[in-house]
């Protein structure tokens, strides 16, 4: 994928254009991962879904079916919301399932060190 970068670099090198270059557009792997989708939640619901004493619901360790059902209810409006309805509608079923898997795999309690390494 990043091989597209060779050509501008080589071209500029040939032209003696020094350190500046035009990056070719990166081409990512297909499909949004659970981690990628879930990290968008963290700005309100806490890093990895860990949050205490907040108006926002913790997501870490949430049962997979509960997460999916809740997002479906936000999306179809059967559960009233302020912004979760429009946000839920902007993710695909596959992405919602991937997010559900991500949060379900995390322990409900925040680990003593403060977070879960995702190496």
């Amino acid at each position, binding site marked *: 994928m*990043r091989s597209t970068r060779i050509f501008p*670099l080589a071209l500029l*090198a040939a032209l003696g254009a020094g*350190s*500046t*270059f035009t990056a070719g557009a990166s081409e*990512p792997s297909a499909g949004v991962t659970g981690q990628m989708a879930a990290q968008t939640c963290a700005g*309100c619901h806490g890093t990895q879904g860990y949050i205490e004493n907040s*108006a926002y619901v913790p997501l870490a360790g949430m049962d997979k079916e509960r997460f999916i059902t809740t997002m479906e209810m936000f999306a179809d409006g059967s559960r009233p919301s302020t912004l979760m309805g429009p946000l839920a509608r*902007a993710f695909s079923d596959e992405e919602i399932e991937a997010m559900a898997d991500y949060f379900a795999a995390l322990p409900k309690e925040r680990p003593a060190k403060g977070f879960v390494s995702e190496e």
Partner: protein
Amino acid sequence: MSKMNRRTFLKALGATVAAGSTAAASAPLFAKKSPHVAVVGGGVGGATLAKYLKIYAPSIDVTIIEPKTEYQRPYGSSEVITGHETMDDITISYDNLRNTYGVKFIHDTVTEIDFTGHKLHTVGGQTVSYDRVVVAPGISFDYSQIEGLDNEADARAKGIIHGWDAGEDLLTLKAQLEAIPKNGTAIIVPPPNPYRCPPGPYERAGLLAQWLEERGDDAAKVIILDSKNGFTTDFTMLQAWNRLYKFNLPEEAHGLYTEEQIATFERHEGEPKVDWIMGAMGGKVTRIDAENMIVETEGAGTFKADMINFIPPLKAGRVALENDLADESGWCPVDPITFESTRHADAHVIGDACIAGAMPKSGYAANSQAKVLAVQLKALLLGGDVQTPVFQNTCYALAGNTDYGMFVADVFRIVDGEIIRVDEQRYLPFDAEPYMYSMSATYQQAWMKAFTKDVFG
């Protein structure tokens, strides 16, 4: 192209083209055991990137180079002006990043970034080597388009404070607000697009009006002099002012909305407590006479004020401008998937300073970009493919009354190489139930804490 191939290529480039330059040739042929990411700037973008990189790839060494030893958050900081928040409330320690996540700090100011040499230099004389540099410098202010103010220092000396980057300026604005005589006038001049915190100037107008009303001023007025004909939060904010501050929707704005939407606006008699002189009404400010507290507009006449909050046009932060990361627009072009600069290799720009398609310049956007970049840097430095990104932004705002909240919430994806907005409804509907506004205010207050913890906690 794998990292190693790329490095090999760069080395070859250095050897064959840049003879005499040791810079490219000094790039390591093989990656060190622990790659090093230098992060220029410890604001929302830089801090989030550093923290998430340590969660996703703990073996990567991460150093934030930032002159300040603690952070003051600009988001929500207009509430300091009205006394709803204190400076302590918006001041955040870097201790958690350091102690919980193992992020290293150098409290110094970056001057030159040597892109080919993969190192940067500081005012304090330090040299920091990196495999990748993330530049998250925030914003700088451009006074060249306004008559009467030469530059930021001149404006400050004349008492014209933007208060758009937190700091002690907020307390100066607070003192200026408190010094407004009874039933006086405050003027707010929002910047042209694009700028940090799109709903912010309008929220600030409401907060000031609310403060003046609660002081007992029946006829105090906050006037927004704008070059633009619209802003983020849109009719939810205008509707709130109509309900709270006798604001009437200008005729010039009627074309922007449906009859059904306009019908939700009440027609008030008398002077509004918040007024919006939009671009179509000639509201663009051309000159500020600080000595006589007079603001001149392009076509709406001259205004006399007791307080002037002029927020000038913005550009990328100084480090980006001085190191050739910005283009002629004053902002930094980047690859939308990796946020790598299109001007310099192995340098990534995130947050307000970068050009990120449809994404706004907001804390949440910077945070979202930083997390995507953390995923990508892990792949770029440790191996693997870069990932398909998805981004989000949420901006909460208050109408002025701290029980009346609103928001914009968006999801962004990459389509045909551009970051575009993919959600349909982004605000509360124009006929939302009243409790939705109070819930939004509750979430706005909760967000300040939750978001800060996601970035720095």
